[in-house]
């Protein structure tokens, strides 16, 4: 079983001890994607601070390894659906940083033409089904995508992400029951970042080992070190294979941590700065990747700085685009409410 991230042994710039199989190309790809997510989120936080992004904005910083590892475990056609902490999932699926950032600023260039915002974005083309604002609602929706996969026989698997907070919603268990009953190809990925807004998992859950939550439905579960992208990828491959082979759903509990508050307006007084710093300094998911790359001499500091520079440029372009893209025209106010009837 995975260790709690705050107690993980690895120290900064030291590679994890149990070396998992990987390649230079894969690790550099992880590094680039996870850094992109982090820099994107930092920029989003900055634009929020400048008043360019409004409303609710939930950042993914600290959790990058979860979505990066799961992305590496799926194939084309597999879907992802999640709650409102969704920017990382979109970037992992290859949605354009410009379009995501422009949605955050509420502009016409956003994925939802500015009508959805941070919590409500979709890309049917990239198999991203949202972006849902009601805690836990994405779970039956994700199981429904799996129902469609099964019905159509398309061989695809639905990755349904939710947090430790959503894990206490009743509809999650309604979905577990039907997904197992009908053998649906779905992997439930619980991103346990240990705080449901301001309430720690210990204060909210009678059973804090969330991977066990499927036991009474006969759904196998696995706890995973969600700060180690290779551990995530390996568990993801097992779970996706399980679901795709007709054995029904699987639960992966990713032990992870968010560095920022629940949303931008959360001062995060329910935990100590020492706790956050401890994870940051000793168990950062990007440091893990970086240490392995340096250790294996797959790249040196200078080469990684180069990647950092490229990522910063992508994020900077996204921010520029998101500021320059115009607000949606008034004519957009009353469109997309109903589909025109198909004759």
């Amino acid at each position, binding site marked *: 079983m995975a260790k709690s991230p705050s107690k993980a042994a690895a120290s900064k710039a030291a590679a994890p001890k149990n070396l998992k199989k990987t390649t230079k190309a894969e690790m550099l790809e992880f590094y680039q994607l996870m850094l992109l997510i982090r820099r994107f989120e*930092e920029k989003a*936080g*900055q634009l929020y*601070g*400048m*008043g*360019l992004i409004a409303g609710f904005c939930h950042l993914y910083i600290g959790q990058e390894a979860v979505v990066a590892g799961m992305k590496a475990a799926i194939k084309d056609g597999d879907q992802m*659906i999640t709650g409102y902490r969704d920017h990382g999932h979109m970037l992992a699926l290859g949605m354009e940083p410009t379009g995501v950032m422009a949605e955050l*600023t509420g*502009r*016409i260039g956003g994925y*939802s*033409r500015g*009508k959805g915002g941070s919590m*409500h*974005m979709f*890309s*049917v083309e990239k198999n991203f*089904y*949202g*972006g849902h*604002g*009601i805690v836990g*609602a994405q*779970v*039956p*929706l994700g*199981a*429904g*995508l799996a*129902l*469609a*996969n099964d*019905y*159509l026989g398309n061989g695809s698997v639905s990755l349904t992400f939710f947090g430790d907070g959503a894990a206490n919603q009743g*509809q999650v268990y*309604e*979905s577990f*029951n*039907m997904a197992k009953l*009908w053998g649906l190809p779905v992997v439930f990925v619980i991103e346990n970042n240990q705080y449901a807004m301001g309430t720690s998992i210990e204060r909210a859950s009678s059973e804090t080992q969330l991977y066990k939550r499927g036991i009474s439905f006969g759904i196998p579960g696995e706890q995973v070190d969600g700060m180690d992208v290779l551990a995530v990828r390996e568990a993801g491959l097992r779970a996706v294979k399980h679901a795709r082979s007709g054995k029904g759903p699987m639960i992966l509990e990713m032990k992870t941590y968010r*560095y*920022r508050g629940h949303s*931008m*307006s959360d*001062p*995060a007084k329910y935990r100590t700065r020492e706790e956050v710093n401890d994870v940051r300094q000793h168990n950062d998911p990007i440091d893990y990747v970086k240490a392995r790359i340096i250790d294996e001499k797959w790249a040196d500091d200078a080469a990684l700085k180069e990647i950092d520079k490229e990522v910063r440029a992508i994020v900077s372009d996204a921010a520029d685009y998101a500021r320059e893209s*115009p*607000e949606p025209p*008034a*004519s957009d*106010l*009353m*469109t*997309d*409410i*109903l*589909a025109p*009837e*198909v004759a």
Partner: protein
Amino acid sequence: MPTQILMPALSPTMEEGTLAKWLVKEGDTISSGDVLAEIETDKATMEVEAVDEGVLAKILIDGGSENVAVNTPIAILLEEGEEMGDLSALESAPAPSPAAEPAEADASPDTQTEVAPTITVSDPAIPEGTAMVPVTVRDALRDAMAEEMRADDKVFLMGEEVAEYQGAYKVSRGLLEEFGPKRVIDTPITEYGFAGLGVGAAFGGLKPIVEFMTFNFAMQAMDHIINSAAKTRYMSGGQMSCPIVFRGPNAAASRVGAQHSQDYAPWYGHVPGLLVIAPYDSADCKGLLKAAIRNPNPVVFLEHELVYGETFDVPDVDDWVLPIGKARIVRPGEDVTIVTYSRMVGYALQAAEKLAAEGIDAEVVDLRTIRPLDMETVLNSVKKTNRLVTAEESWGCMGVGAEIAAAVTIGAFDYLDAPPARVHQVEAPLAYAGNLEAMALPGPDDIVKAAKGVCYLG
């Protein structure tokens, strides 16, 4: 180039705040994520973290400063290798603008309300000589589903007891035998869950029909009907589609008490992004359910248990489909317009017969679709009769009749010879006791009374 650190907005409503104290000093090396300062917002004290890396060259706003406006530069950060002298470049740099100008700022008032589509559709003409076949409402609904399932293999039915039990009210009788368990799916008793799975399946390319044993149980699923099904097209800028039908019996049955007896037409009729249909007779049930299944939008289809067993004629044509959003004048008349839907159509027709005996010629308009309302038909009728009575089984407050009365008052004020009258359930949960239940629910006599009232004959 040196980077300005700006006073951040730390909540959706913050315009200014107090820079309580600096946690770094000039000359410090800053890493991304370091806490720079504490800021008091209108809600809380927040820590501000560094986004960029570098050396804190200059603090522009001292700790303890109050009323610092959002976006005011509070410090300057130099990147590796930059000199303080580079600061002059910042002096003339304009402060960032909060938002680009909207592309079109001239939102005209017309865009503030959903423009009701001009209904130009009408019921299909029934060719002369077409046989009319007596069919129960129950079987008409079943025939509609069976025909659409034969025509499109993406259509399937799910719900409690729809398959092996043949439907709690026998509406899905025979469907399992014809289409098999893949397309006629018995669900556990789990309305919130299976409504969500249905919506997800619609997102995934299928056309689900989700049956609720009654719409009273759909209250548990309302979040998915409204937040997931009705709003997603809009929130996705038109990318996502949710072709789904939620159907089942609605409104009062008989002596089943308050929790099982409620008309949800006004609840769903309130929601943009939904189509809401509440038909009465067999032909309308069949023609409109077929239209609902074919429609690319989420449709709430409200049936009535107490008419499932009633028999009406259905035209014996190959493909009987009716337009959504079109009301029907079921009885033409000259003196008063009675606007109603679902089971109350039958009561309105009975009332019209009684009124005729007293010399009042009532016109009965069956709305059939609750959203969008066919106000054109209603207004034309009122302009002819100059009097309006609405009749519904739901409570009156915020009800369908309230909406119709408002729309008629706005759209045909000068034509009205009397204030509109509304007939509806009394404003109480429905009682179990037979006498109280009968007193609570509106019937033909209530409609007669209201009609005579607007004719000043009460």
